[in-house]
């Protein structure tokens, strides 16, 4: 996302107050922080946060979204500003594309392919070579979104197994489980996926697209922003799987970073802080973009991908979902 402002991550319980035309972050045992509202692109609240109407109206005027992660670390919801970026013409074009079975399956296909490509890229090229060819074949044969999701699930299962071979015993996934995550590894993945979802939502809200009209996931399914589910597919491996493997191999994740009960696990307070800091820094990492010929942060890649999809809907230029190119 363009660099005119930045994301603020709230990791300790706090209250956001409005002081004239700027924000004050109040915390229990730390000094107040004053933030000019023009510097804020969006806020990710990873801990308990209080805010009131005065703040909301200021945030709305400056189009600042706030994303909330719940006590258990899953995505709890967002405070979204009014839909000032969407454009009728683009949304109509998007709906036409989504309504055309041929066009929407083509997009869904390329999303699944790009997602698997990225998983394979960050997990293991050799061990996943075979599952990836199988996936590509079944993508070719698929004619519906459900079939594509099934093929992706099969590929993902082999990927989770490969990941397990690279993790210490206590961090192994033993199959993906959600709501609640059953063990430490799953808790980590869920948490990072929640943040990625929130970041993609911010990105989509900056483009003229409608966040509910999707191509792979059912439109408006589960009262979620389905388009965001679509677009975050490609970015989850870049953040979740990659960071899990990296932090495990660097021995950064310790057992005390997780609270574990018999059949569920979540990040502890210290763990949460560590993970949020890591993700925040990771989103700021830059790579050279080939056609823009400048450095772009990972954060911005989400926005650029949503723009590419906008172009596909509005102008019919080919849409190539994000693939890790470096």
């Amino acid at each position: 996302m363009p660099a005119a402002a930045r994301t603020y991550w709230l990791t300790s319980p706090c209250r956001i107050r409005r002081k004239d035309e700027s924000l004050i972050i109040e915390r229990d045992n730390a000094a107040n922080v004053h933030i000019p509202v023009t510097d804020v692109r969006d806020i990710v609240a990873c801990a308990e946060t209080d805010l009131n109407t005065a703040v909301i109206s200021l945030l709305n005027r400056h189009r600042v979204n706030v994303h909330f992660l719940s006590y258990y670390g899953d995505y709890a919801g967002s405070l979204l500003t009014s839909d000032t970026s969407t454009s009728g013409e683009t949304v109509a074009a998007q709906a036409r594309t989504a309504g055309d079975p041929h066009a929407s399956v083509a997009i869904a296909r390329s999303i699944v392919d790009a997602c698997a490509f990225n998983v394979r890229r960050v997990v293991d090229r050799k061990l996943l070579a075979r599952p990836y060819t199988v996936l590509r074949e079944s993508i070719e044969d698929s004619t519906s979104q459900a079939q594509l999701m099934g093929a992706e699930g099969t590929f993902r299962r082999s990927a989770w197994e490969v990941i397990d071979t690279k993790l210490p015993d206590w961090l192994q996934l033993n199959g993906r489980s959600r709501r609640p995550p059953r063990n430490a590894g799953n808790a980590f993945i869920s948490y990072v996926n929640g943040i990625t979802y929130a970041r993609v939502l911010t990105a989509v809200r900056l483009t003229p697209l409608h966040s509910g009209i999707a191509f792979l996931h059912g439109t408006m399914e589960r009262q979620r922003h389905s388009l965001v589910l679509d677009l975050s597919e490609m970015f989850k491996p870049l953040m979740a799987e990659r960071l899990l493997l990296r932090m495990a191999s660097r021995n950064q994740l310790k057992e005390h970073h997780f609270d574990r009960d018999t059949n569920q696990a979540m990040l502890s307070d210290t763990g949460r802080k560590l993970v949020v800091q890591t993700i925040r820094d990771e989103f700021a990492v830059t790579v050279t973009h080939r056609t823009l010929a400048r450095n772009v942060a990972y954060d911005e890649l989400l926005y650029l991908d949503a723009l590419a999809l906008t172009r596909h809907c509005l102008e019919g230029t080919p849409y190539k979902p994000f693939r890790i190119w470096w």
Partner: protein
Amino acid sequence: MITYDDVGGVHIKYLYHCRRQLWLYLRGIRPEHLNAAVQSGEAVHDTSYTRNTPVDLGAAKLDFVDGSHWVHEVKSSSRPSPADEAQGRHYCHRLHRVGIEAKGAVLHYPKTRRTQKFPYTEQAAVQAEADVEAVLAVAEAPASPDRLARSGCRGCSFTDYCWTE
């Protein structure tokens, strides 16, 4: 899509800068507020000549008109461009349509402390009329115009949209 009376200064500016930009702008692609240069331009606008009141002509909004009917426009760039001139010309055209005999446009460049004067002549009136027609023609086009050469896109807030692959 838009009518003769909806054509404003921004449309004219984009017409001169890049027709593709105009086409996209008309279809609701508005990435400007994300661009640091645009924000800085707005800041220049907010802090320069604050004693004068802007004139709202509906679609067009011009910075101010002085006592002898010269239109004044404040520009944040340091280099005058044909688009700036066209914008001033369009404002004169709009004023004439509501019965104010604007004499011409004065463009202010606070960064370099220069001004440029463009009297509104017969010829300018014809050109202003042609510009409005050109905007309407771009609006009608079913397909988007091609991108400019890459170098022409430098600094444009639509670059991300046009050039991401």
